[in-house]
C-alpha cells in the first residue's frame, strides 16, 4: 500500500487487563509522512494501542517494529530517543514548571538543539506564555504545550490521542493545519480521534477498531458505508 518501506509496523498486538481483552491481535503499518486515523467506539482499544506502541504499557503478545527493528521491550525514553512521541487525551504537561522550562527539559533530554525551543513556541503560538506556569494554562493551551513537548524531541512518529476534544471550531481548524504541517515535514502521524470532521481534514486513510481488533481499513468515505462499521458505531 505504502510506496516506501514502513516506518512503523505493528503485528498481532495483544493486551489484556484482568478479564478485559483490550487489544486482540491488532496489525497495522505506517509510512514516513503518512497520516493514519484510528477510530472506533469507546473501549475498542484505540488508546490502548497508542499506550502499547509508545511504551506506557508492555504488550502481552505481538511485535512493534520501528524501521524494521523491534522496540517492544524498550522503556519510554528510549523509544522517544528513537523518534516515537505522543500527546495525551488529557494533556500532561509538567504543571509546576513554566512553559519555557517544560520545553527546555524536553529539549535537553532529547538532545535537541536549544534553538528549536523558540521555533516551537512560535509554531504553536505559545511564545507569549513562555514564563507562565503550565498549571495556569487553559485546556487548549495545555494541549498545544503537550504537542510542543512532543515536537521538540524531533519525532518521526507522532501518536496523537484525541487532540480535538474540547477545542472550539476555530481552534480545531488551526490544530488541523498544525498537524498537516507536521505531517508534510515528514513525520508519520497516528491519530486517535472521535471527531471525524476533524480527522477528515488530516487524512483519508483510517483503521476502524472494535473489541481490540481491526474491522476495517481504507478511506473514511468507504468506512462510512461499510456495514460492519455502521453496526459497531450504531449498535455497539
Amino acid at each position, binding site marked *: 500500500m505504502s510506496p516506501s518501506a514502513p516506518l512503523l509496523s505493528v503485528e498481532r498486538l495483544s493486551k489484556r487487563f484482568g478479564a478485559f481483552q483490550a487489544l486482540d491481535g491488532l496489525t497495522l503499518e505506517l509510512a514516513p509522512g503518512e497520516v493514519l486515523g484510528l477510530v472506533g467506539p469507546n473501549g475498542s482499544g484505540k488508546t490502548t494501542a497508542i499506550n502499547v506502541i509508545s511504551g506506557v504499557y508492555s504488550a502481552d503478545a505481538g511485535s512493534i517494529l520501528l524501521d524494521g527493528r523491534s522496540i517492544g521491550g524498550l522503556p519510554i525514553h528510549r523509544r*522517544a530517543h528513537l523518534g516515537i512521541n505522543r500527546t495525551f487525551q488529557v494533556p500532561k504537561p509538567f504543571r509546576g*514548571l513554566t512553559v519555557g522550562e517544560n520545553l527546555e527539559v524536553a529539549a535537553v533530554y532529547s538532545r535537541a538543539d536549544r534553538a528549536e525551543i523558540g521555533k516551537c513556541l512560535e509554531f504553536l503560538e505559545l511564545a507569549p506564555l513562555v514564563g507562565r506556569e503550565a498549571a495556569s494554562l487553559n485546556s487548549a493551551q495545555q494541549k498545544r504545550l503537550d504537542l510542543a513537548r512532543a515536537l521538540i524531541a524531533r519525532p518521526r512518529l507522532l501518536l496523537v490521542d484525541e487532540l480535538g476534544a474540547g477545542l472550539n471550531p476555530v481552534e480545531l481548524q488551526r490544530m488541523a493545519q498544525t498537524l498537516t504541517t507536521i505531517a508534510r515535514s515528514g513525520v508519520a502521524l497516528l491519530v486517535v480521534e472521535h471527531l471525524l470532521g476533524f480527522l477528515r481534514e488530516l487524512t483519508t486513510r483510517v483503521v476502524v477498531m472494535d473489541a481490540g481488533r481491526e474491522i476495517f481499513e481504507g478511506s473514511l468515505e468507504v468506512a462510512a458505508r461499510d456495514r460492519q462499521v455502521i453496526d459497531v458505531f450504531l449498535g455497539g
Partner: protein
Amino acid sequence: MPRGGWYSVGVVLLFALLPFVYGNHALLFNMMMYLVLAQGINVLFGFTGYLPFGYVGFFGAGAYGASLAILLVHLPPVPALFVGAAVSVLVALLLAPLLRLSGAYFAIASLAASEVVYYIVSNPHLVSLTQGPYGISLAQVYNSGASYATMVVVLAMALAAVVYLRNSHMGLALQAIREEPISAGFAGINVVRERTRAWLLSAALAGLAGGAYAWHVSVFYPKSVFDLNISVFAIVFTLFGGVATLVGPIVGTLLLYGLYNWIGISQPEYFQLVFGIVIVLLVLFLPNGLVSLLRRAKIHVP
C-alpha cells in the same frame, strides 16, 4: 553566583561563626544536622515526590558505617565519614527497587526498610561486628571542634547539592518526573535513572550527616541514630518551609528547631502536639509551605 548561592554562603558562614559568640555548640550542631537532613528530604521528596519516612535509616547507616571504619579499619574520622556515606549509598542501592512503589506505599516501605537496617545493626548476634545493642564508643577520636567543622562542610555540601538541583537540568528533570513521570519519559528523560540518582544523593547526604553526628557525640546506641523522630523532624521542617526550594527547608528548620529549643526544652510533649497541628494545618491550608506565601506575594524564592 547561581540562584540561591548567596543564601547558602550566608547560612554556612552563620554556622561557621556562631560558635565564637554562642557556647552551646551541641545545639548549633544539631541544627546543622537537621538542615542537612531537611535538604536531603527535599532532594528526594521535593524534587521527586517520594516521601521517605525511613530516611533515618540512611542516617543510622552512615553513623555506623563511619564508626565501624574507625573502630575496625582504624581510619581517621574524615575518610571514615566517606565510608559512612558509601554505606548509606549502598543501602540505598539495595533498596532502589522500592522506587517502583508509589506514594504512601513507598513511604511505609521505606519506614520498614529503616527498621530492618536498625534491627540488623542492633542484633545481639552481630556484637563482634556492630557491637549490637550495646552501642558504639568513639572516645579515642572524640574531637568536638573538628567534628563541628566537618558538619559545617557537610552542610555546605548539602546546600550546594540543592543549589545545583535548583539551577540544573537534572533538577528540572526530577521535577518533571515528579509532576508527570510518563510525560517525562517522552521528554527523553530516563526516569528510573534520574530518580535513582536523586535517591542515592539523598542517601549520601544523610550518610554524611550520620557520620559527622557519630563523631561529634562519639558515644551512642543504635536507638539514638535510628530514632524515627529524626525522620519526623526533618520531614516536618521541610514541609513547613516548603519543598523543592533551597530556602524552604532552611527557613523551616531554623524556625521550628529554634522554637523547639527555645520552648520545647521545658515542655517537649507540647511540642509534638504543635508539630502535629502544624502538619494538619499545612495540609489543609498551605500545602506548599511557608515559602508559598512569598511566591503569592510575587517574590522569587530560590
